[in-house]
């Protein structure tokens, strides 16, 4: 990876504990600007906690977290908001406010820019004409501009996920954290969402970190980081992700994911989600190797 000065994300001996549980047990990693990294690991391995420390949602027991060169835990409230303004998030589900309209939810991508009076105005009257135009443009890119005035809870899960992507489009963050964005949607929508995230990251030259359960999908990323018990067990190109490493990562999981060799075989008759589509459409992502 070419170094471009300040790294997008730098973790130094980061330790996070919840009571007796060590969610992150001494993690040190650097992610450069513009990288696309897939984070894999069993449930409870620390994937979500990793994202939580980047947005300062949890306290650190030890270590430092630098986002774009700034120590995120040392920032004052105004600087913190400015830093978070540049971090975009998308979750598995429920990241939008169900009772608000699609357009309003997208508008909240810029919430950190609003002053007190602007907040009240936005609350009472909604986004202004210029902002609304940009919101509709963002929704058009995900194919939902006709639903701009609908309440979010009238949309399907897949559509809601696309609205979340539109919110990211409006926000134009420099760091995108996607926490299992595909786990709750059908494979077709999942491909659209992932494709949109990759396109968005490419446009903004943003850094993209994606938590994934689907190892086959993770293989389409140039860099894979695997967490086991709060520590990094693997960090490198997916070609190096051997069956032994995978067994170590997912030891104890009821359903072992398919190892590297099997990914090139014919899709299993069970039709595992994501896998058949990937083997046939690997070129379709248009991923640029770095």
């Amino acid at each position: 990876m070419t170094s471009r000065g300040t790294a997008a994300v730098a973790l130094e001996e980061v330790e996070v504990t919840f009571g007796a549980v060590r969610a992150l047990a001494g993690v040190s990693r650097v992610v450069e600007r513009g990288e696309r990294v897939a984070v894999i690991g069993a449930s409870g391995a620390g994937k979500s906690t990793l994202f939580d420390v980047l947005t300062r949602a949890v306290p650190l027991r030890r270590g430092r977290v630098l986002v774009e060169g700034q120590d995120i835990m040392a920032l004052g409230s105004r600087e913190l908001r400015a830093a978070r303004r540049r971090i975009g998030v998308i979750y598995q589900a429920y990241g939008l406010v169900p009772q608000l309209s699609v357009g309003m939810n997208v508008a909240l991508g810029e919430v950190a820019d609003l002053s007190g009076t602007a907040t009240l105005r936005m609350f009472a009257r909604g986004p202004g004409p210029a902002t609304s135009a940009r919101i509709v443009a963002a929704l058009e890119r995900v194919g939902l501009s006709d639903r701009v005035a609908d309440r979010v809870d009238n949309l399907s899960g897949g559509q809601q996920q696309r609205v979340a992507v539109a919110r990211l489009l409006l926000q134009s963050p420099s760091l995108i954290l996607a926490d299992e964005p595909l786990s709750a949607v059908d494979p077709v929508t999942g491909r659209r969402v992932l494709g949109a995230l990759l396109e968005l990251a490419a446009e903004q030259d943003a850094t993209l970190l994606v938590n994934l359960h689907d190892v086959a999908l993770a293989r389409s990323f140039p860099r894979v980081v695997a967490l086991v018990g709060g520590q990094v067990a693997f960090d490198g190109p997916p070609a190096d992700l051997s069956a032994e490493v995978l067994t170590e990562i997912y030891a104890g999981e009821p359903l072992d994911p398919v190892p590297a060799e099997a990914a090139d075989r014919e899709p299993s008759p069970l039709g595992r989600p994501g896998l058949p589509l990937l083997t046939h459409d690997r070129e379709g992502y248009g991923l640029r190797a770095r």
Partner: protein
Amino acid sequence: MAFAPAEPPVRRIPPALPRPRTPVGSLVLLVAIGATGLSVYGTEFDLVELVAGAGPIERFVLQMFPPDLSMITLRKTGQGVVETFQMSLLGAVIGGVLALPLAAIGTADAPTLGASRIVRLVGAAPYHLARLVLNVFRSIPDILWALVFVVALGLGPFPGTLALAVHSAGVLGKLFSETLETVPQRPVEALRAIGASRLQRLMFGRLPQAAGSCLSLTMYQWECNIRSAAILGFVGAGGIGQEILIAMNLFDYPRVATLTGATILAVLLVDRLSAAGRRRFAAA
């Protein structure tokens, strides 16, 4: 058992009746039973006396029938019911409006990480102050508030309405803040992660999710208010209670019957309206 000792004992299957599951639970139950028994003794609770009092109750009730349905009584009754209705409604509305900002301040949001202890203490002060104000409003019964306001403002429905408003604000404030705190957290967390301030998280994340419940709670408070409003008149704070007190002091029991009947009808009406409204809003 008549079988050979080698047969293992059959374990009793626990019934459906709720019972204590730990020794501490059993102890608590014993203490509760003991306290209840003591209360029976302390309040001079006597079922025999109740049965013996059936005779006078019967005579009292008979004196109320037939109820006074003269034009003048009906007019007074109608005015009383309308006034009671208006007091209860206004009390709930003002209470809700007053409760919202207090509840907003009194809503616990995740603690500021990385801030020093002093900053955190100072930051928590408005929260505790708001909660204190709401507790005071809530803990003093509305009839006591009514007394206070009657002393300050004289007789009539205005002090009564104020009393209901203040008490409602206290009750609703606590319920609103609990609702705001327990809305689904993920949308709020998402807003925090992308830089929303506490006020923005409240307005865009918590309030829309809590609005339906808050409206529901306000309607329920209206129901509670009409029952209170009916008796605030006993201390001169307006409503039909005033008429009931006067009629009782004059031993005009047929009149009391009419007034009480009208009160019951008014309460039932508000109960119905409130339930219909709440059905519509609670799901939102």
